[in-house]
């Protein structure tokens, strides 16, 4: 059964507890930059809004990606980002009509970026180290 998060943005206070829970669940550390949920702050309107990937049926980001880093998981049907393929061009962030795909600069911690949990259904591309970026993997 497919599940999705139901978010009432009117209730959000911007405490980021959800981001911490998400990052801990996926990475075993409190690290909001790795959260699949992102709370955006609209300062002058006084609004905080949590965003997650909407998993569009026709995923523009998937088509926009020049290196096929965004693929459909055969088991779950979810569109997921393969971060060891991603080259950090950010085209997907432009393609997404909802602004829910985010880019996180990540300084060369090669050891952990391969251990992401592919079963998760939200998207989360990051930059990979410069040395690898110049020769993108295609498989």
């Amino acid at each position, binding site marked *: 059964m497919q599940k999705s998060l139901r978010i009432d943005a009117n209730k959000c*206070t911007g*405490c980021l507890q959800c981001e911490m829970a998400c990052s801990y669940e996926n990475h*075993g*550390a409190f*690290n909001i*930059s*790795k959260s699949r949920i992102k709370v955006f702050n609209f300062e*002058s309107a006084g*609004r905080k809004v949590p965003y997650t990937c909407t998993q569009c049926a026709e995923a523009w980001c998937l088509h926009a990606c020049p290196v096929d880093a965004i693929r459909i998981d055969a088991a779950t049907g979810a569109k997921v980002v393969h971060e060891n393929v991603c080259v950090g061009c950010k085209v997907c962030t432009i393609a997404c009509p909802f602004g829910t795909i985010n880019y996180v*600069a990540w300084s060369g911690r090669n050891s952990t970026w391969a251990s992401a949990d592919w079963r998760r259904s939200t998207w989360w591309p990051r930059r990979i180290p410069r040395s690898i970026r110049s020769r993108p993997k295609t498989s």
Partner: protein
Amino acid sequence: MAETDPKVDPLSPENKLIMTTGPLTGTMASTGGRYSVVTKGPLTGAIACSNSGGYFGAELKMAGWDMIIFEGRSPKPVYLWLENDKAELRDASHLWGTTTWHTEETIKAAHQDPQIRIASIGRAGENGVLYACVINDLHRAAGRSGVGAVMGSKNLKAVAVRGTAGVPGIKDFKAFLKATTAAKKVLADNAVTGQGLPKFGTQILMNVINEVGALPTRNAQDVQFEGARNISAEAMHEKRPGDGKSNLVTNAACFGCTIACGRISQVDQNHWSVTNNPKYWGATGGLEYENAWSLGAANGVDDLDALTVANMICNEDGMDPITFGATVGAVMEMYQMGVLKKEQIGIESPFGSAQALIELSHMTAEGRGFGKEIALGSRRLCEKYGKPELSMTVKSQEFPAYDPRGIQGMGLTYATSNRGACHLRSYTVASEILGIPVKTDPLATDGKADLVKAFQDATAAFDSAGVCVFTTFAWTLADLAPQLDAACEGGWTLERLAEMGERIWNMERQYNLAAGFTAKDDDLPKRLKTEPAKTGPAKGRVADIDKMLPEYYKARGWTAEGVPTKDTLKRLGL
């Protein structure tokens, strides 16, 4: 004391500025987002330790830093850029002379990353306003004692952090999650932290404190303010006649906070103070109780939108609204007495003048005209004009929004606070007015020495853990201990935490004693001790500090001169 000589000139390169996080900062513990700025304070000459919420502290921790120590002085303006392990001092000449709001926007744009968190000083910190703050996330402040002026004296404009490394290493994650979840439930179930603070913020106190006759009004001449209703939490919820909107837009949380007491406010665009100033039209940090008091009741001003704008100016240029507002109160009293004239100040400044308040805010923030004198704080200003008795200060720092004539325990709190008069080190209002954890009589002096000591020790433990002092409305050390113990090594029991709090307090005291403070400095302004409250439940009362202070020294294990005895130091392992 190991870091800085207690005799050092606070604004000299020899002073150090320390930004530090606590063990629970950046974790899922509720309110675990706080960082402290520690230095020798230029306003007081005593130890300064101001802590702040927002998101900066957590981001610092997530970049992998527990503490930063700034030494010396940069030859030119710089900002520190931290990106995980990378630390770099970058040129900030283009930011010097600008506000904290402009600085945040410019740095985020330069690094093309809206997720960067920034702590910076505004023009007040650059100009050496003695009560300048460090502002992070636009409107959260490490506010008191002038830590921003020290930052300015080092030519350090800002610290910008991006942390993607995270906070690993929780000792026992399962136990930690269990402890933090239980503690969050305690906060949610409590009437103050679960309902009062989210809905009304700290401003819920305005009418309460006014009712009990402990709202220092017009430079503490009165203890009740006739305009309190107009600047209260209830008024912030009401729709204005001007544009049909309420002052309060929403509540907001700091990092990790499940209370969310923060106020996000918006003023009427047609209000006279902002009609030509669109930068104040958007929603931003609104009035807390202390600011509403210091800018409002302390000056007899009851124009809610004007107070909100004055508060925005304080945030924008980084100055402590408590000291600033209380200093304006002293200026207004001197104007009323004829000691200061309109020609000197630059504007008519009677009590109740919102125009004077706004103009003086701009002048002080920008370092113009009479603003340069207000920048000294009320103790120095009043001495200069021969009226030292009009300065409502302890150790040169203005006391906040609770009148010791109506709440006796706060008198002892102000007199003995290590960073100068302050409510955040021992909030006995919780017990004396709100009945947390037990109700005590606000007008009684018996037992207040022990009460203040217990509050001071517990608060020191909460502050250094990296959580917010507002949790203490619901939490005791017994709620904090299991969270800390699950997160860190060291066997953090209740007893150990209490002892740690007491040790911190004694170490701060020793620093101040070495800096030249004596028991004489543990005293309240003459007005509070000699001019009885005119109205309210405390009518006829003065602050009985002289009765409580010896009891307090005894409870602390200090000599009659306020010096920790050898036995006390030995017991605490100092």
